[in-house]
């Protein structure tokens, strides 16, 4: 079973979820979060609608593992929405995209309630022990691998997944920090092949998670990212862990999810 650990789903037309296309590209299930532009704080209502959309897609497609998204600037209201996602809707995890959403983990907001380390959201994450994805790309100020290492240390019971793992600039930092932090996971979207290979060698295949950034670039990234993993020459057992086994073990799928269904409804496009 291939589980894609990095899939965006938004209601703004940028990233509509197309289950048939995902299947045709070889994906059995997807860790999905809104991410990027649509959760940039434009409105709490939109974030809530996007989270509801993920819940709907999970039940309709049987291949969506929804990760709730909120903006920390909303303080208590953000925590309540995250609590709703995880405890009421039964989402398996949470996702944050600090760079694209325009906030830093620690430094930007003088109001501690919107500083992730001190915000009410942090308490929800800690109490639920849910897996958490943080986009971790190329701007060190926002969410560098080292900052996520500190987040992982402060949330020792939560698996913390580095989305992009530093991309092609900071992947060495991601490997070094993850080697010192057991609950930090290395996700592979846009990481150079040599970086992924080294991550498997240094961290073990059980700490590396395949991701494609689907549906960016009209889904072309999926074949490229899969080819990178398959070019590594991993053992079948290790490849299976990277391509979905690790996320499966985190329990992000509902029972029966990931088994292909005969007719996959498309998400209505706006």
């Amino acid at each position, binding site marked *: 079973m291939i589980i894609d650990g990095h899939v965006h789903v938004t209601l703004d037309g940028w990233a509509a979820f197309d289950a048939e296309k995902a299947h045709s590209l070889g994906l059995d299930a997807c860790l999905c979060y809104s991410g990027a532009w649509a959760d940039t704080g434009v409105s709490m209502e939109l974030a809530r609608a996007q989270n509801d959309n993920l819940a709907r897609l999970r039940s309709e497609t049987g291949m969506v593992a929804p990760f709730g998204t909120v903006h920390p600037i909303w303080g208590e209201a953000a925590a309540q929405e995250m609590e709703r996602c995880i405890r009421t809707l039964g989402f398996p995890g949470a996702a944050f995209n600090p760079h694209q959403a325009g906030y830093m983990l620690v430094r930007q907001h003088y109001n501690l309630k919107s500083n992730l380390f001190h915000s009410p959201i942090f308490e929800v994450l800690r109490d639920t022990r849910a897996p958490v994805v943080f986009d971790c790309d190329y701007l060190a100020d926002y969410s560098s691998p080292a900052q996520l290492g500190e987040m992982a240390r402060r949330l020792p019971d939560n698996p913390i997944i580095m989305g992009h793992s530093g991309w092609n600039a900071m992947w060495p930092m991601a490997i070094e920090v993850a080697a010192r932090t057991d609950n930090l996971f290395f996700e592979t979207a846009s990481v150079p092949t*040599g970086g992924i290979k080294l991550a498997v060698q240094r961290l073990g295949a059980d700490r590396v998670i395949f991701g494609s950034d689907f549906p960016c670039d009209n889904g072309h990234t999926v074949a490229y990212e899969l080819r990178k993993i398959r070019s590594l020459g991993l053992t079948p057992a290790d490849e299976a862990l990277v391509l979905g086994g690790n996320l499966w073990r985190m329990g992000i799928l509902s029972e029966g999810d990931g088994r292909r269904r005969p007719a996959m409804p498309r998400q209505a496009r706006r």
Partner: protein
Amino acid sequence: MIIDAHCHVGQGRWVSQTAEELLRQMDTARVDMAVICPVDRQIAVDNREGNDAMIAACRAHPDRFRGLAVANPWYGERAEKELKRALAGGLAGLKVHSARQGHYVNDEILDPLLRLVDVVGGFVYLHMGTPEVAMPLEAIDLAYRFPSVSFILGHCGGVDVHWPLSWEVLETCPNTLVETSHVAFTGYFEEPVRRFGGSRFLFGSDSPVGAMEVEKWKLERLDLPGSEDIFGGNAERLLKGRGVL
């Protein structure tokens, strides 16, 4: 001839590759020639060691390798002497990695080295994608200051938000080209290649950081106009301009 415009040979802290290992990758990917440069430590401090290794590899495999020199500009006159020596040894141009070497990419500290490259008709590969020190719109300063030197923007300028900055550089400076390694959203190439022409793009893998076969495949499947230029013609022109092909 298919030429990979950006590969490394040497024992690095993060990734390593011998000349023989690179040749095997080239054979597997059906690549005729690679433009090679040294690895991290040699780029940062042990420039002479790196340059000697490039010269030796090119002499051992004259039909497969051409090399770029490294010289950290903070060494001042010693860097100029080292670059002169390396170019005299047959290396084709200069690789600048401002993040490893500790300066802004447009810093005038580079100018004495760029003048040396200009004199011999060489070209310059710029590492791109490290904010503050290695970004496309900062590199544009170099292209203005040295209009007769060709500058290659590595990794298409960096990551997704940097790629459009590279298009701005291509638009403005005819002496610039873009190298393609690590760009995951390959569909983003199609419009710029049609707009600027295949003569402004170079296939590169950054091997062993990137997997050569995978990086080549991602471009082949796009059926880009001017693909002969992208896969070798442009690199061939740069090397011939320097007189090393």
